[in-house]
């Protein structure tokens, strides 16, 4: 690891000021960033810790849904969202291992946008709204591909609001080594339709499976997608699965998520 400066602001304006500095890098859990720095693959000059800001912490019910502070650790979401949004809480409780869940945060995960991370599936699958220090971004406009988001320089997530669905479930098929999603599907049924978000499968990161959404909006049952198949085009190919295998998982897991949704 190279040397760096460290600041831990206690409010959003101070954090915004710190983030404006040259070479500043937000730190919110550091589950990807710190290993990268230890391997000397990243060398930010200033780390701005976002975990000391009270308004970026915790889970509460807001007018437009469940609001989760961006610096809330996964284990806290698993606990505090359990009654408000059980599928979201279950997702948070299944990320990584206890050490990861007690450090990693919602905002950290979303800002990094790993193509195999869990949280992007919940955010996109819920049609959530990403709140930053500058603006609100709809989930559909937030994810821009592999490790790429709508966040601009100096911008950081402060909270995310999740509209609460009638039914929802997240089914993850573990990548056996990392326990990230080899492929995972978040299905959420709202009054105005069903959303299906897939993570771990596409080279472009999290995406919505439009055909399944249409079929499930008409008939919310696993049988409704029996005749669909996800395309393997653009799916990830690695040691753990071929594109065809991932495409198969998209369908299998979507069916299982529908069956599990409550």
């Amino acid at each position, binding site marked *: 690891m190279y040397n760096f400066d460290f600041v831990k602001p206690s409010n959003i304006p101070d954090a915004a000021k710190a983030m404006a500095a040259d070479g500043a890098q937000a730190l919110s859990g550091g589950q990807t960033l710190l290993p990268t720095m230890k391997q000397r693959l990243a060398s930010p000059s200033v780390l701005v810790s976002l975990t000391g800001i009270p308004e970026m912490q915790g889970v509460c019910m807001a007018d437009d849904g469940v609001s989760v502070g961006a610096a809330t650790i996964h284990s806290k979401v698993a606990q505090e969202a359990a009654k408000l949004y059980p599928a979201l809480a279950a997702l948070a409780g299944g990320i990584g291992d206890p050490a990861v869940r007690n450090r990693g945060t919602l905002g950290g995960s979303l800002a990094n946008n790993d193509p195999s991370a869990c949280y992007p599936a919940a955010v996109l699958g819920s049609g959530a709204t990403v709140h930053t220090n500058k603006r609100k971004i709809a989930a559909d406009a937030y994810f821009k591909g592999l490790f790429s988001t709508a966040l601009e320089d100096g911008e950081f997530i402060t909270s995310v609001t999740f509209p609460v669905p009638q039914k929802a479930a997240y089914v993850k098929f573990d990548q056996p080594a990392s326990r990230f999603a080899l492929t995972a599907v978040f299905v959420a049924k709202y009054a105005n339709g069903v959303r299906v978000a897939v993570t771990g499968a596409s080279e472009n990161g999290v995406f919505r499976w439009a055909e399944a959404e249409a079929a499930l909006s008409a008939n919310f049952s696993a049988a409704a997608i029996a005749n669909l198949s996800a395309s393997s085009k653009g799916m990830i190919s690695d040691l753990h*699965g071929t594109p065809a295998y991932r495409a198969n998982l998209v369908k299998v897991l979507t069916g299982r998520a529908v069956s599990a949704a409550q």
Partner: protein
Amino acid sequence: MPKDSGIGASSKRREDVRFLTGRGRYTADIQLHGQTYAAFARSPHAHARIVSIDTKAAEAMDGVLAVFTGADFAAVGGNPAGWLIQSRNGETMKEPKRPVLAHGKVRHVGDAYAAVIAETVEIARSAVEALDVVFEELPAIVDMAAAVADKTNRVHDEIADNVCFDWGWIEDNRAAVDAAFKSAPHVTSLKLINNRLVPNAMEPRASIGVYDPGTEDYKLYTTSQNPHLTRLLVAAFVMGIPEHKLNVIAPDVGGGFGSKIYHYGEEALVLAASRRIGRPVKWVADRSESFLTDAHGRDHVTTIELASDKQGNFLALRTETLANVGAYLSNFATVTPTFLHGTLMAGPYKTPLVYVNVKTVFTNTAPVDAYRGAGRPEATYSIERVVDKMCRELNLDPVEVRRKNFIQLDQFPYTTPVALVYDTGNYQATLDKLIDIGDFAGFEARRAKSAKAGKLRGLGLSTWIEACGIAPSALVGALGARVGLYDAATVRVNPTGNISVMVGAHSHGQGHETVFAQIVSSKLGIPEANIDIVHGDTSKIPFGMGSYGSRSLAVCGSAMDRALDKVIAKGKKIAAHMLEAAEGDIIFADGKFSVTGTDKAKTFGEIAFSAYVPHNYPLETLEPGLEETAFYDPANFTYPAGAYACEVEVDPDTGRVEIASFTCADDFGNVMNPMIVEGQVHGGVAQGIGQALLEGCTYDANGQLTSGSYMDYTMPRADDLPMYTVDHSCITPCTHNPLGVKGCGEAGAIGSPPAVVNAVIDALHRAGKNVTHIDMPLTPSRVWSAMNA
């Protein structure tokens, strides 16, 4: 009633107290006055010429003490191969020099070409980045078949076809084997890959070199499974240090699985660096370095053929294997795919004709060497897979086929067609035990239950044998070993009657400190708590050959047993003197020396005290002191054997395999500590399941390690594994060592992979899928792809 101490008791592992409470003392824990730090510059390329290395900027950095490159070691020796293998044509194998630091060329990603010594690790690493090196990249040689065919690209410029040797075992049998195949009613063929594995000891390698300018003595703290061999290699072969001026200490070592048997260049580097700068030099590998540079395991590509009649009687077996040795020959790299593999190709069967051909191939990958089981898992996997395939082809019961081909009880000692002599065994007994405790009778009911849950259940079998207790020196010497493989122990009885035993075996997790003390306790009738086992320090222990090949108890334990016999014999002499009786009338039992037929006796403690306070000894005939050493060279290998069964459930939608149960019936000979034996089997099976389902070390076509971290290399975790059913009650004691022990350390890793794979194939077959083979690891993607091919 289970025993509560001594031989046969499940004594709790005394070493675990310090391991589990953070009080172990590993190499990285050792902090020496004035200590400095080494960091290595490692090749980012699989294959490249080193055009130039400019060290000036690095040397000029504050805190940098020295920079070494390959040129600094050009004049000293290389790290030698431990065995010289003869090719079929009578030529001796190729042995390219393995230098301390790469010189002229780098040959695998991670190959160290320079090292920096600095005041801190961070400065050393920054200085490594400041080295200005120019590489001329060369095509990477990764695939073995391509390496053999390629006459222009060479890992070592002097070796034209990248082949180290082409070995036939037994070459004289080849014609008869080929003839048997020509006339056989049935031939089953299978091409399979024994997947490359990364050892992943919990503790990464680490070394500290210390040179004392006052005495000109060197000391090396290092993560070694055999400190005396390391001393011999560093002193006599690489550095030219007089052996008596080098003390090697392997303190607590956190696992090895083979990867820490060998001498590595980093050990020589820290010694050379300490000599140059006059201060201790420490290096601790990070996990990435472990992945890149620890000797990997397995990596065979094999075609195996089994000739049989239609009833499944084996007539002949023949194999052709390409075995990867990586870029350089690690110390045991040449014996692992040959005499630890080819000689096991008879398995527990009376196959009359066997021929094995192995070509070892240099590639631009990390060196490959012995890893838990070392050659024997490869042999067992090949045999047990082809036997299973034959059973399917001929529609025969895999249990009955194995039964009828077993070497029968009345055939021992049995000489195999691949030149081993199995002293004893009872393969029917372990198979019967397995069928019983594995509840084979209930399988159909369990299968039906799985089917109801939408899962495909399968049952896989493996009956295995290994040769361990390595090894008779005369035999291995005749086969090309450059070392003897005896072991040694010194039993030192202290004046107050407690005991220190200095052993040549090295414990890096096995539990020697507990088990060896149990044996001493039983033999001398004194409490285990009064016995300490000392290992790992060449200045304290007799010259031993360390731990690997399930040899510690069979070889070093036997040495200790012999030394204890000598202590008892000496004790009798002392007792005879003290009790004024004839030596022949003294008997030793229950910790007492007594005169037969009388109530005159002396306790062991009294004898011990007398030995060191010899106020009235007849010194012409009775020496003071009570300390004895024995060296033990085994007469034969030992042959543990067993039968394993695995039940799996396959998810037909995802291809995911879950181990539903795993059952082991082993014959390890006499068992000294059942709890530790069971733990060894659990760990071995975990590694076997890891190999079968999870672990795969892969390089891409450019020679980049694509499974270089725990993000991609899947280690087995608790939730990947079942609760095991383990039995070791079928016992045929080893006939040629005094304890009657055979060894249990590698068994689980040897017997389990084929049981797992056979179970998956069975599950698919029962579901109507015509899948005959899937290469390990059987990842969900691979299983699903095979089902949907």
